Every structure is written in C-alpha cells, then in structure tokens.
C-alpha cells in the first residue's frame, strides 16, 4: 500500500524510460469540473489513467444521516446537478416505498414529464460540452438555446432552474404552472425543428465522426463487469434501462423504446444519447395532453417515520442507474443512505477504455462518458 502523495510527487519527475506523467486536472478545460486524472503517456499514447477524486466531496451520505426524511431529498439536487429532478425522485420514491405512500396519478405523470425534460436538458448540455471537448465551440450555444427553454419551464413550475427540489415524498411540491403544457409543446416543436442543426454541425460532420468512431471501445462484457449503466452501457449492447426493466411511476404505461447500439465506441454512445432525446420527446408527447386531474400530492404526516428496514430504489438518470439504499432504524432520520451513482462506475471504466489511444481520443471518450464530477464524488 503506498499513499497518494507519492503518486503525485512522482508526476513531477518523468516516469520510466520514455514515459511522460501529466496531471490532467483538477483545473483543466476538458475535465468539466474538478476531476483529476494522472495520465502516463508514451509520446501521445496513453498508457495508464489514474483518477483522483474528492475535490468536491461533500459527504452527502454522512450529511443525510442528520437530516429528516423531508429534508434529505433536496441535498441530492447537488449530486448530479444536471438530473436534479431524477435524483430527488429517487429519494422521494425511497421514502414512499418505505412508508407505503400511494402517489396520486397526477403527481406521477408530472414527475415523469419533469424527468424526461430533465433528461433532454442534460443531454443537450452534454452535446454542447462534448462538441466543445472536441474543439467545436458553436454547437454548445445552439444546444443551450433549447436547454434554456427547458430551464424556463422548470423555473415556472418548480421555482428554480437547476436545483429544483420539486419532488417531495408523496408527490410534487406544487401543481404545474398553468402555462406548462403550452410551453412544453412549444419546446417540443422547437426541438424538432432544430434537431437537424446538431446533425449538420455534429453528427454528420466528417471530422466529428473520425474523432469518435472506433474510439474508446467498451465491450459488452466489460460494460457489465465495470458496472456501467445508462447510455454508456446501452451503446455497448447491454439492456439496462431501469425505466423498461423495473418500470416506476407511469413508465410502464407509456410507449418508448430502449435505445441500444452494439458498436460500443464513442460515436455509438453519442448516437444513443441523441436517440434517447427523441424517445424522451416521444414520452412527453404521449403524456402532455393526458395529465389526469386530481391531487398533486398525497396526504402525508408532518413527520415522516419509515419503519425499520432496508429499502433500495433504482431510477434511470440521464447518466445511468441511480440507486438509493436506505437503512432505516425507525427514527426521523435515516440510519444510513448509500447513493449508487452512475458516474462513479462509469468513470472506473475510463482507464480500460482509453488505454492505448491518443490524448485527443481521451477527450472523446471522457466526453461521451458524460461525467458530472459532483455525481462521482457525492
């Protein structure tokens, strides 16, 4: 066992014969936050990648142990801040499962609508950021234009743009805004009009294709073994969409396809995400006119006290499978909460995927893994 200091010290001197050890991050344009990768290079070829985490570790799991069941959902918005709704939903669902709260149909539909909007918003940001990693700056702004519409919808209904805290145990915090349906329909229309722009600028671009095709290959066996989930695993042919396998809320009642690809390279991961946006649009179109009347929140007690036991909820965030493992001792605060974050497992496959490729390929691989660092560190 050797300590971390030694590793970092090691990077100031070059590695063994012909090797170059560089610190990528914690401040680096492509690591999207504070990911720190210690990369061993041979010329431009990557020999080894060691991630060092913890620069934004807030120990949310420990914090949660002193928060009540109403309070602890909002903290998870800060984990994977791009799918804040879905994180909140996972927590709310865990409490509902533990306390056997029946969520009204209307709340379920609103939740699914919000989830899918979040998923599109997250993928929009990812498309921009990924193109930026590969050196194309402009798609970022086009993607943000559409994302802005979603954040405005969120702002109208939830009162915040990023950390909404809209899903609460028992339903949603408020009813949807009166303009919600109109604005969502406008967004769907805008998205359909503008989706060709990404095709022109990114998908069909010969440089983009040559940068991503065959880069960062992950086989099906490795994807399973590394615990990958979400688009990363689905691009390798692993069917792992929690919305399909273990449907929650009203996902069982809507029609959508699980997007699968078998190529397993960066371009496949890119395509899976783009197609997933279209599937999300499909779900939204099915539900937007069919929001049932009724309560938006179930009647719950002021103080939530789940019974003693262990509860596990799995949801599909924009990045993959989020698990909330709740150990309750019957008190007002959780005894232990474990968040199984998708990014952490996906990151563990990075070394395997990037070995032997160029530094430029690392950007494509890392970009398509869609890492959100607070989600990894928690």
């Amino acid at each position, binding site marked *: 066992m050797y300590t971390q200091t030694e590793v970092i010290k090691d990077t100031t001197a070059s590695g063994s014969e012909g090797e*170059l050890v*560089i610190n990528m991050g914690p401040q*680096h*344009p*492509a690591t999207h936050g504070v990911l720190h990768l210690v990369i061993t290079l041979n010329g*431009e070829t990557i020999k080894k990648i060691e991630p060092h985490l913890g620069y934004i570790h807030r120990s949310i799991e420990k914090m949660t142990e002193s928060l009540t069941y109403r309070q602890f959902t909002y903290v998870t918005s800060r984990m994977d801040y791009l799918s804040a709704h879905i994180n909140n939903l996972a927590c709310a669902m865990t409490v509902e499962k533990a306390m056997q709260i029946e969520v009204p149909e209307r709340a379920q539909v609103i939740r699914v609508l919000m989830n899918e909007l979040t998923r599109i918003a997250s993928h929009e940001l990812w498309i921009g950021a990924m*193109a*930026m*990693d*590969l*050196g*194309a*700056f*402009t798609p*970022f*702004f*086009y993607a943000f*234009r559409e994302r802005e519409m979603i954040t405005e919808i969120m702002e109208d209904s939830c009162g915040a743009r990023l950390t909404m805290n809209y899903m609460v145990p028992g339903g949603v915090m408020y009813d949807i805004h009166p303009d919600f349906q109109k604005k969502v329909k406008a967004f769907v229309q805008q998205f359909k009009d503008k989706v060709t722009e990404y095709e022109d*600028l*990114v998908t069909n*671009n010969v*440089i*983009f294709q*040559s*940068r991503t095709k065959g880069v960062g290959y992950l086989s099906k066996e490795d994807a399973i073994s590394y615990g990958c989930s979400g688009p990363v695993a689905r691009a390798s042919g692993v069917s792992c969409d929690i919305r399909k396998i273990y449907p929650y809320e009203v996902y069982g009642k809507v029609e959508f396809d699980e997007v699968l690809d078998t190529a397993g390279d960066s371009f496949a991961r890119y395509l899976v995400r783009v197609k997933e946006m279209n599937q999300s649009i499909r779900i939204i179109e099915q539900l937007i006119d069919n929001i049932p009347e009724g309560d938006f929140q179930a009647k719950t007690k002021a103080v939530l006290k789940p019974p003693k036991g262990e509860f596990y909820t799995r949801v599909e965030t924009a990045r993959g499978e989020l698990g909330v493992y709740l150990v309750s001792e019957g008190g007002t605060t959780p005894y232990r909460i474990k968040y199984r974050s998708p990014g952490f497992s996906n990151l563990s496959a990075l070394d395997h995927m990037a070995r032997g490729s*160029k*530094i*430029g*390929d*690392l*950007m494509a691989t890392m970009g398509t893994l869609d890492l959100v660092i607070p989600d990894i560190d928690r």
Partner: protein
Amino acid sequence: MFSLEGITKTIQDWLFSSFSPTVALLIECAIIILLAIALFALLGLVLVLMERKVAAHIQIRLGPNRVGPGGMFQTVADTVKLIMKEGLTPDMADKFLFNLAPFIVMIVAMLLLAPIAFAKNFQIWDINIGVLYVSAVSSLSVIGILMAGWASNNKYSLLGAMRSGAQIVSYELSAGLAILSVVVLTGSLQISDIIESQKDGWWLFKGHIPVIIAFVIFLIAVTAETNRAPFDLAEAESELTAGFHTEYSGMRFAFFFLAEYINIFIVCSIGATLFLGGWMPLHIGNWESFNHLMDYIPSSVWFMGKTFFLIFLIMWFRWTFPRLRVDQLLNLEWKYLLPISLFNILLVTLIAIMGWHF
C-alpha cells in the same frame, strides 16, 4: 483621387532631395519600421475584435458590447490589461529561450510583411523571389513555437510544441505546391508580376478547376500553418489547456496572440494576392465600362476587402468545425492534400504549357 502611390512618391522625392542617399534610405527604413509596428498594433486590435464579433454572431450571441460603441475598444482595454499584468517565468524554465521565443514569433511575422503589396505601387520590398521568400520565412515561426514549448518546462507546452512542429513542417508542402501552381501560370516569383498578370481577371477565375482546387488546398494548408481551428492542435484548449503558450502571461502571451492574428492576415493577403489579384480591381474580359467603374475603387480597398474576406472564411472554419486528432491531421496532409496537390500541379502545368487559361 486619393492614392497611396502619390504619397509615397512625394515622401521619397522629398527625402532624396533634402538628404544624402544613405541618410534618406535610413530615414525611409525608420518610417517603414514605424509603419509596420503601427500596422501590427492596429491589425491586432481589429482582428481580435473581428474574431470575437464573428464568433459571437455565429454563436447567436452579441459579443463584446460594453467598452465603446458596439464594443469597439474592447481589445484596447484587453491590451491595457495584458500590459499591466505580470509576466511570469516558470521556476525551472530556460529563462533565455523562454523570453526569446515570443520575439522570434513576432519577428517572423514582421519579416513577412516585406513583400506584400498593400496597394498599387505600395510595397515595402518588391523582391524578385517574393513568393519564395514568404514560404521560406513563414516556416521559421515553428522555431519560435518549439522554443516556447521546450523552454517552458511544462509537459503540456512540450506536447503542443511537438504537435505544432510536425504540423507546420508537413503543411508547408501543400501550401508550397498550391502557391507553385500560380507561379507556374505566371512564370514569375515576384509579387508585382503576379498581380500584373491578373489584370484581365483573377487566377481563381482564369485558371479553371485546378486553380480552384489549389486555392482550397491553400486555404486548408494555411489554416493549419497558422495553428487555427480545426487544426489548432498546438493549442488544443480541451486537451493541452493552451499548448505551447500555457506558461506565458502578460505581454509575452500577447505577443503570441498578436503573432497568430498577424500571421492570419499575412497568409490571407498572400492568398488574396495569388488567387484574387491582390490590389487589382475586378476586371471582366472586355467589359470596358464595368472595368473602368471598378478602377474608381481605390486599390488599397480592393486589397483589404479581399484579405478580410479570406480572414472571415478562416474564422468561419474555426467556429464551425471540431478539432482533428494529431494522427488524422497528418493523414489529411499526407494521404489527401499532398497527392491531390501533386496531381493538381501537373494539371496546372499542362494548362500553362498548352495556354488553356484565359
């Protein structure tokens, strides 16, 4: 009508009449140096602002709009900031080379100004091997970049400099061959001769498809030579933070930055001279009245217009395309551009020999 030719002639006559030829020449040199530096500063300011505005409009933004009307003085403010900033030298860097590198890059850019004809008879040095001079001197800038990368004692800088070395050396070839195709058609290396040969039409139109191909290859190659996106591997922001100038700050960084834009201006003016007739107005065959009308527009306006059009094209590339990978960059050169331009030059030679051009 306003003519730069008249002004320069008056100044020269006056100088030679009032001083001995040696002193007059020295004074002329001093004036030219001053003018070149002034042009440098001005071009830097204008081009940086132009880049930011072009980028902003492509990206559905407004761009700089706070300092001065429409953000006109934004770059001036930036320059003031850069001058005031501390120029850091890394601890273990090779101090001499580290400080020398930005000046080498600047000097190379300045040297390249010499043979460019800015307007009719307004040229610093009408050297008889003008085109050769340009392609020879422009390849020197790689020395400055390598020096900067090596002396910085930073691994990102080193990687960036190595990439840049491979890139500039290989793209010199196809840029050279593209230039050669015009030289073949003109039969002269002198810039003024090349412009003169386009009196009745620009080479881009006169030379059929092969010259158009040469023009496209020239554009691609010079984009790569000036380290611009999609070939900005030497800087490659998302990979190497800032590549060879990662460790530079303050005015020394500004020199690199400025040199990049000056280089763009120079290669675009060379492109405009070779393919679009330099300061020569747009002349179409024997439409006498049209040609006459075109002559009324000052030659400097023609030259600047063409150059800035090409600069706009290069900026347009930058804000549209993703960056290539280093091996793809070399593949593009050796597998696509070089064979095509070799084949192309054969065609151009054929056209020149058979006299098929207009």
